[in-house]
């Protein structure tokens, strides 16, 4: 069994175009949610989101690449370039076959679907660009990373709705730990802030029209975001041998299924996932100082998640901190766990706990320390990152300071 460490991190999301920018925004409790900018906005009832602004893909990708890269792939590349640069890793021919990539996405190339459906249905065109299929397929981003970085080992994309990134990082962790791979790129992305993507979410009636206020009694639902988070995972031995800076150690992962409702969360499924991650990491509940919550800001999730933490942690639930950074960067759907893992890295490395912003009124159903509105200094040795997806698929990661 190899020890697994993180040696690179990258992101782009509504809070920032890099990890330092994103962490600075989290420290300041800055809001990345605002009025949406897109065509046909007048036909949407939800008009807010955490959109990435000022991103011009033509600066970063040439014309041939852009013909193949949906926005979700572009965002994945922005994050992976940062992560790879930070890791200093060179994927040599020798390392290539024992390096892989596992990414999570819920919607894949949503912009490509949206644009081309509009073209054939609304505009009545009878011809689409020849690259539509390779551009929209859910594994496109993972494939392009494999091509760009000469990654020839195990590569795949997982799709478990809002837990996609946590499942992806967890699987990559298991692959490095078991020796199946020496190095893994892992994380996820989603870019479903399209007219069709927002319409679909509107239909469920769980979206807020005003703000994402997790755990606050006056919360009114979730707010969609977009973006990517990518991490370089490698064996501790490999990282040490090449003198890489180690950001944190991944020590546990568990996934469970509710076998219940297709959209309503389940306390027992969440409890089993958190306990499973603790057990896999060989941690006791009291070792955990911070949990990055799933914390969507819906009535159902927040109440269930808090009850699950109470059950899994017992009296220690009152001593630990749990925040939802979705209040700032929105819900990145399949990419959300990857961006949220950055809050765990900040807690472990910098001793800064990202806040839950937009918090106004205590809810007796969420009576935990949710780090309301203002970031906090605290020394934390180990953290969990929760993801509880539609479909009742739960994935929890455990990390330790290095």
């Amino acid at each position, binding site marked *: 069994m190899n020890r697994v460490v993180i040696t690179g991190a990258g992101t782009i999301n509504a809070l920032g175009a890099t990890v330092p920018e994103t962490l600075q925004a989290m420290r300041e409790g800055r809001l990345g949610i605002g009025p949406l900018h897109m065509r046909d906005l007048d036909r949407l009832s939800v008009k807010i989101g955490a959109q990435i602004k000022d991103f011009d893909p033509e600066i970063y990708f040439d014309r041939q690449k852009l013909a193949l890269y949906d926005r979700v792939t572009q965002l994945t590349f922005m994050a992976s370039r940062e992560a790879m640069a930070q890791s200093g890793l060179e994927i040599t021919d020798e390392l290539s076959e024992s390096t892989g990539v596992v990414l999570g996405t819920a919607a894949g190339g949503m912009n490509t679907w949206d644009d081309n459906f509009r073209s054939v249905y609304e505009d009545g065109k009878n011809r689409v660009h020849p690259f539509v299929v390779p551009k929209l397929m859910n594994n496109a981003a993972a494939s392009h990373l494999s091509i760009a970085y000469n990654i020839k080992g195990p590569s795949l994309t997982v799709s478990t709705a809002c837990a996609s990134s946590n499942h992806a990082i967890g699987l990559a962790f298991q692959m490095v730990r078991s020796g199946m791979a020496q190095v893994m790129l892992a994380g996820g992305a989603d870019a479903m802030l399209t007219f069709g993507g927002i319409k679909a979410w509107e*239909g469920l*009636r*769980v979206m*807020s029209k005003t703000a994402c206020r997790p755990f606050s009694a006056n919360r009114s*639902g979730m707010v969609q975001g977009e973006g990517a988070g990518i991490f370089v995972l490698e064996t501790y031995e490999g990282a040490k041998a090449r003198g890489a800076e180690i950001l944190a150690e991944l020590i546990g992962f568990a996934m469970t299924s509710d076998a219940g409702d*297709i*959209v*309503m969360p389940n306390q027992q499924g969440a409890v089993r996932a958190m306990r499973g991650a603790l057990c896999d990491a060989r941690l006791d509940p009291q070792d955990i100082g911070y949990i990055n919550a799933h914390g969507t800001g*819906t009535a*159902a999730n927040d109440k269930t998640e808090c009850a699950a933490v109470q059950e899994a942690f017992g009296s220690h639930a009152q001593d630990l901190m749990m925040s939802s950074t979705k209040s700032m960067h929105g819900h990145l759907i399949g990419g959300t766990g990857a961006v949220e893992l950055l809050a765990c890295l900040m807690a472990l490395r910098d001793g800064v706990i990202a806040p839950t912003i937009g918090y106004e009124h205590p809810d007796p159903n969420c009576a935990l320390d949710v780090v309301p509105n203002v970031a906090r200094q605290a020394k934390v040795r180990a953290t969990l990152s929760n993801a509880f997806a539609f479909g009742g698929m739960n994935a929890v990661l455990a990390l330790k300071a290095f």
Partner: protein
Amino acid sequence: MSVKDKVILIIAEQGLLDVADVSLSATLEDLGIDSLGVVESIFAIEEEFDIEVPFNANAPEESEFDISSVATIISAVETLVAEQT
């Protein structure tokens, strides 16, 4: 068919019930309709009457659209239909 009869038909279909079994005083819960069923019923009402129903599943009790019983739903739909014309 009246607004009332159309709403009852939609609710009956959602609850897999006979129209005769949908009493005006019943709650949707009484009729075996869960939260996802509520959202689906409201969608069906919007489609049937071509109206926008103000309803947030996060806080049903705070929504302007009162879903506490079959009767309140009918009354709320009647109001929305009247406002539209």
